[in-house]
C-alpha cells in the first residue's frame, strides 16, 4: 500500500463527496463479502474472506491535506499456510499408513490359521511343518510300513502346496498393489496440472494479495494431492507456489507441471519424473502411493523372502538327509524339488518323489528295517536349519514379526488420522465459515490435550501400581 504516501494536488468540492461515497462503497463491499461467506457456508473448501481496506490518497485543498477515507480493495481469505501445510503433511502420513495397513491386513489374513476348515491354506503352514516332521516320527516305529511312508509324502505335499500357494498369493497381491500404484499416477498428473494452471491465474489476477476462491481451489487440489503422494510446498513470488516431492523432485514450478510416467522395471512399475526414477522417493514420501509402494516393495518382498528361506532350508536339509540314507527301492532321491537358489524357493516348492519306497528311513549301509535316518529326519524339526532357527520357530517368528508390523502401522494410522481430524477442526474454526472463533478452538485443543494427559498419566500410574503388586504373571 504505497499509494497513501503520495498526495494528489486537486481541490474540488467533489473530492469531499468522493471521501464519503468511497466510505459507503467500502461498507457495501464489506457487506458483499459477508454475504458471500454466508452463501458459501456449505461449499467444500471455501475459506472465509475478510475485507481488505486500503487508505486512499490524501486530497490536498489549498495546501492542506485531507484524509481521503478508505477503499475496499478485495477480500483476503482467512487461511494460514502454517496450519494448512501441517494438515497436508499429516494427511500424507495418514494416507500412507492407511493404504499400507490395508495391504498388510490382506497379507496377514493370508497367514491366519483357518480353524475348522479342511481346505489347505497358507494359514496352515505352521501346522504343516509340525505334521511333516511328525510323519517321520511315526515312521520310526515301523520304517517299512507303506501307509506311514505314504503319509510322509502326503504331509510333504501339503506343506509344499501351502508354501507355494502362499508365495503365489503374495505375488498376486504385489501385482494388484502395482496396479493400484500406477492408477494413482493419472490422478497426480491431473492435480499438478490443475495447480500449475491455478498458479498462473493467481499470479495474474492477484499477485500481491490473497486470491480468494482461486486459492481455495488450489488448496483443495493440494489437499487431494496430499492424499496421494508426499509433497513439499514452496511459496514463490507473486503468490505462486512450487511443489516438490518430499525428496525435492520438482512437480509444479509455478505455471508448469512435471508429469509422472511409469515403466516396468524388474517386473513391477517404476515411477519417473521426466527421465528421473523417483520410485524410492515416492515410497518414503507419504500419501496412498507411498503406502502402496512400501507394501509392494518392502512388506511383501520381506514375506516372500521369509517363505523362501523356510522352503530352501527345509527342502535342502530333508533332501540331503534322504539322499544319504537307504531306501526300500534302493534309490534314495529327493523328496522335494531341489532349489537352485534361495530366491524363488517358495514358489517352486513341490514334492518330486512319487514312490514312497524311495524314502530312506534306514541309515547309509543299513538294512531296510533300520530307522536311524527316519530318526534324523524327524530330528530336523528341532535343528536350526532355517536361518539359525528351527523351522517351526522360524515360521512362528515370521508371523509374530508380521503381526507386530501390522500393529505398529495400525497405531500410526490411528494417531495420524486423529491428528488430521484435530487439525481439520482447527482449520475449520480458522478458515471455515462458521461462528467458532480461533481462540475458542485453541482452548478446546489445549483443554483436550491437558485432560487426555491426565487420563494417560493416571492410567499409567495405576498400571505400574498393579504390576508392582506382584501379579506380573498375568501380564505378558
Amino acid at each position, binding site marked *: 500500500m504505497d499509494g497513501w504516501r503520495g498526495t494528489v494536488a486537486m481541490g474540488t468540492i467533489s473530492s469531499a463527496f468522493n471521501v464519503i461515497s468511497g466510505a459507503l462503497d467500502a461498507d457495501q463491499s464489506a457487506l458483499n463479502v459477508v454475504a458471500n461467506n454466508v452463501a458459501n457456508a456449505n461449499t467444500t473448501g471455501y475459506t472465509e474472506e475478510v475485507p481488505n481496506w486500503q487508505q486512499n490518497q490524501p486530497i490536498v485543498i489549498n495546501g492542506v491535506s485531507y484524509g481521503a477515507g478508505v477503499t475496499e480493495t478485495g477480500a483476503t481469505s482467512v487461511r494460514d499456510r502454517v*496450519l494448512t501445510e501441517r494438515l497436508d503433511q499429516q494427511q500424507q502420513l495418514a494416507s500412507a499408513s492407511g493404504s499400507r495397513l490395508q495391504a498388510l491386513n490382506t497379507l496377514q489374513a493370508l497367514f491366519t490359521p483357518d480353524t475348522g476348515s479342511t481346505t489347505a491354506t497358507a494359514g496352515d503352514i505352521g501346522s504343516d511343518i509340525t505334521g511333516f516332521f511328525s510323519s517321520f516320527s511315526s515312521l520310526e516305529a515301523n520304517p517299512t510300513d507303506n501307509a506311514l511312508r505314504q503319509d510322509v509324502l502326503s504331509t510333504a505335499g501339503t506343506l509344499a502346496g501351502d508354501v507355494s500357494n502362499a508365495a503365489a498369493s503374495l505375488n498376486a497381491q504385489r501385482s494388484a498393489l502395482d496396479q493400484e500404484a500406477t492408477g494413482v499416477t493419472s490422478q497426480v498428473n491431473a492435480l499438478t496440472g490443475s495447480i500449475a494452471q491455478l498458479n498462473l491465474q493467481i499470479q495474474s489476477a492477484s499477485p500481491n494479495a490473497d486470491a480468494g476462491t482461486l486459492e481455495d481451489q488450489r488448496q483443495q487440489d493440494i489437499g487431494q494431492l496430499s492424499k496421494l503422494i508426499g509433497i513439499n510446498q514452496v511459496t514463490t513470488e507473486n503468490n505462486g507456489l512450487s511443489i516438490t516431492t518430499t525428496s525435492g523432485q520438482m512437480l509444479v514450478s509455478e505455471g508448469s507441471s512435471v508429469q509422472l510416467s511409469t515403466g516396468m522395471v524388474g517386473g513391477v512399475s517404476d515411477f519417473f519424473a521426466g527421465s528421473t526414477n523417483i520410485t524410492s522417493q515416492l515410497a518414503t514420501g507419504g500419501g496412498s502411493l507411498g503406502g502402496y509402494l512400501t507394501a509392494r516393495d518392502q512388506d511383501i518382498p520381506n514375506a516372500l523372502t521369509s517363505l523362501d528361506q523356510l522352503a530352501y532350508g527345509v527342502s535342502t536339509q530333508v533332501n540331503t538327509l534322504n539322499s544319504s540314507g537307504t531306501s526300500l527301492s534302493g534309490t534314495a532321491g529327493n523328496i522335494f524339488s531341489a532349489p537352485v537358489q534361495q530366491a524363488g524357493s517358495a514358489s517352486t516348492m513341490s514334492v518330486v518323489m512319487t514312490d514312497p519306497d524311495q524314502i530312506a528311513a534306514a541309515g547309509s549301509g543299513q538294512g531296510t528295517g533300520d530307522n536311524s535316518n527316519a530318526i534324523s529326519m524327524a530330528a530336523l524339526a528341532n535343528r536350526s536349519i532355517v536361518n539359525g532357527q528351527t523351522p517351526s520357530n522360524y515360521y512362528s517368528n515370521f508371523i509374530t514379526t508380521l503381526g507386530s508390523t501390522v500393529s505398529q502401522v495400525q497405531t500410526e494410522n490411528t494417531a495420524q488420522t486423529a491428528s488430521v481430524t484435530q487439525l481439520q477442526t482447527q482449520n475449520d474454526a480458522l478458515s471455515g465459515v462458521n461462528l467458532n472463533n480461533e481462540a475458542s478452538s485453541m482452548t478446546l*485443543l489445549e483443554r483436550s490435550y491437558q485432560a487426555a494427559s491426565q487420563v494417560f498419566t493416571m492410567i499409567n500410574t*495405576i498400571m505400574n501400581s498393579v504390576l508392582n503388586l506382584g*501379579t506380573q504373571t498375568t501380564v505378558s
Partner: protein
Amino acid sequence: MQQIGARGVNPGLKQLVIEASRALARLDADRLEELAQSCRALSRELAGDGDRDKRLLSVSISEAESEMAVFERVLQVTRANVSVMKRLRELREGKLEYREEQSVGWLEGDRRHGDN
C-alpha cells in the same frame, strides 16, 4: 459413565483407553475431563483397600496395553498439533503487532500532511 473400579466388576480399562483416544481425536474435552475424573476415583479406590481390586485389574491391564500404546501416540501427535497452533498464534500476534506499528506510521503521516 463407565463403572470402573467397582468391586467385582470388570474395570474395562481397555474400553476406557479406547474411548480416551477417540475423544482426543475429536477434541471432546468434556468427555476427556469426565474420564480423568473416573481415573481419579479409581486411583483413590486402589490407594485404599485396593489389593483385591488391583488383582482384578491385572487382567484388564494386560488387555489394555496395546490400546495404551495407541493412546500414547495420539497424545504425542496432539502435543505436536498444540505446538503448531501455539506457534501459529504467536505468528499471528506478531503480525498484529507489526500492523499496529504500521498504523502508527500512518497516523504520523496523516499529521504530517495535516501540518502542511
